[in-house]
């Protein structure tokens, strides 16, 4: 290391480039870490749908189909009914996992985010990096899940292909909210457990996943209406078989998720910047 080839950061580092691509540099860190666990990610990405499909889709499904003569909820076989819900669940849950734990990790455990920030990334770019890496993983998870559903003959319409980009998008919108929530968390303040038990779990239970939401009494049905999973599932059913949705409701589903995503990003951007500069 001699002074000879010391060019100096001003000549070496292009700050305009960082301003443009900083979010991807932040994502690169996380994606590299993910790649270290690729076997686990692949195994889980394939094992998870197989497990659900054989147990619920086929096991429970054959029971229900027998009792309903193959015209279960929504008038389709049970596997077709729950396939979009399973895919939506995988998309939302998978993306969520990539923004909750890694965010706490980035702020608290090893302070990775502080290193990124000290190097010139903004709080906003660090937050965007988290979302980008979460989406990267979800592209894989959702595609694999979709392919397995397709192999099990769970879709009756070719428009089901739309589910891949849509569920990835809905997953990202939901993840933005969860990222904002995670930015307020401290490593061991127990909030994760509380949110998991009282927000996430009910949301996954009362979103019309395993049965139509309309079978629930109105007193709990609202849980489904605000639940991102219900919106993601409804859209999923629309595209994978002839589940009727008015164009107004289509807009509502997309609008609701998009608004959640924007709100999540705005809150997260702000909180990331504040925490990194405190």
């Amino acid at each position, binding site marked *: 290391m001699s*002074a000879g080839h010391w060019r100096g950061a001003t000549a*070496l*580092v292009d700050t305009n480039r*960082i301003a443009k691509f*900083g979010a991807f540099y932040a994502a690169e860190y996380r994606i590299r870490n993910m790649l270290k666990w690729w076997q686990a990610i692949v195994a889980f990405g394939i094992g998870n749908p197989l497990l659900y499909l054989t147990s619920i889709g086929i096991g429970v499904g054959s029971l229900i189909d027998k009792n309903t003569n193959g015209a279960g909820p929504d008038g389709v076989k049970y596997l077709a009914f729950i396939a979009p819900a399973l895919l939506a669940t995988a998309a939302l849950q998978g993306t969520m996992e990539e923004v909750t734990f890694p965010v706490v990790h980035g702020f608290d455990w090893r*302070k990775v985010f502080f290193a990124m920030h*000290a190097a*010139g*990334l903004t709080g906003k770019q660090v937050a965007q990096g988290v979302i980008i890496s979460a989406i990267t993983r979800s592209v894989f998870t959702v595609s694999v899940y979709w392919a397995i559903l397709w192999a099990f003959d769970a879709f009756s319409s070719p428009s089901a292909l739309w589910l891949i980009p849509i569920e990835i998008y809905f997953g990202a919108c939901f993840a933005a909210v969860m990222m904002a929530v995670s930015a307020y968390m401290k490593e061991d303040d127990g909030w994760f457990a509380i949110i998991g038990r009282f927000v996430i779990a009910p949301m996954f239970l009362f979103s019309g996943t395993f049965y139509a939401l309309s079978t629930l009494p109105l007193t709990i049905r609202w849980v489904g209406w605000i639940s991102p999973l219900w919106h993601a599932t409804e859209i999923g059913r629309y595209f994978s078989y002839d589940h009727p949705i008015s164009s107004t409701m289509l807009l509502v589903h997309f609008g609701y998720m998009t608004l959640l995503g924007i709100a999540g990003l705005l809150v997260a951007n702000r909180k990331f910047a504040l925490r990194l*500069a405190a």
Partner: protein
Amino acid sequence: MPDDQIVPRLTLVPNPENQTQMIVAQNLTKVYGDFTAVAGIDFTVAKGESFGLLGPNGAGKSTTMRMITATLQRSGGDLTILDKDPDKFGPQIRAHLGVVPQADNLDTELKVHENLYIYGRYFGLSRKYLTKKIDELLAFAQLEDKRNSKVDQLSGGMKRRLTIARALVNEPEVLLLDEPTTGLDPQARHVLWDRLFRLKEQGVTLVITTHYMDEAEQLCDRLIVMDQGKIMAQGSPASLIAEHSSPEVVEVRFGSDRNAAVAERISHIGDRMDVLPDRILIYAQDGEAALAEIISLGQHPVTSLVRRSSLEDVFLRLTGRTLVD
């Protein structure tokens, strides 16, 4: 104590106007709630200079450091880093600095060379550049044979060297180190000092905080002595000692129950005296002569030591407290 010695404004080492100023702080202030951590300090760091912030725990060193690395927003005053205001150009400034924080934030899951690579990527540096640079940096940090080790497996001194190497990946205009050697054993500290000295010789601008006066004396051309968020003195180590202390110090111990009584009897000796619980310090032009005078008065210390005056003495003089407790 005359006023001008409490808050000296003049530096004895010239900091010429025509030199490029890398950092200019005027009345720099940081307030947390109603607690003032940094209370309006003024200093400049010139290009190529090695500048120190010396002070005890809680003096406000890290707070100052974080403000001048553009990672903590100031509450007041003016601050220019690399000719820019960090409130407006934080990311641009940070991209051109090298930062070694007080607590290492290496990624312990990644290998040594991966830590350097990924940090370089935050600056958008190319794979080609980084491949070559990482070899250089590992050699510089004497970590070549740890290249593929996990960070977890490194000693404290090695981690510190890796953090410094990491901070150099973008060839920073200023390298800022917050307590680079705290917690290291003497051997590891000397290795680190040697590395920092090389950088200094190459003309890298350094800013170092420390509460070790020997570290400040070794590494800093110029420093500020901080206490309770204020600057107590500034100048080169030699000029600070010349200004605030006598050339030599005699340390004598008479046993803790006798120190105070003896102190009264020998108080006329030397330029000045400090009575600490365990020893008496006598500041003198000639230490040996002062010690001889004490003994000629019939006072025989249990132990005695004549040494050159240090920044520790300057600090004690300015604040009435020792630097490291």
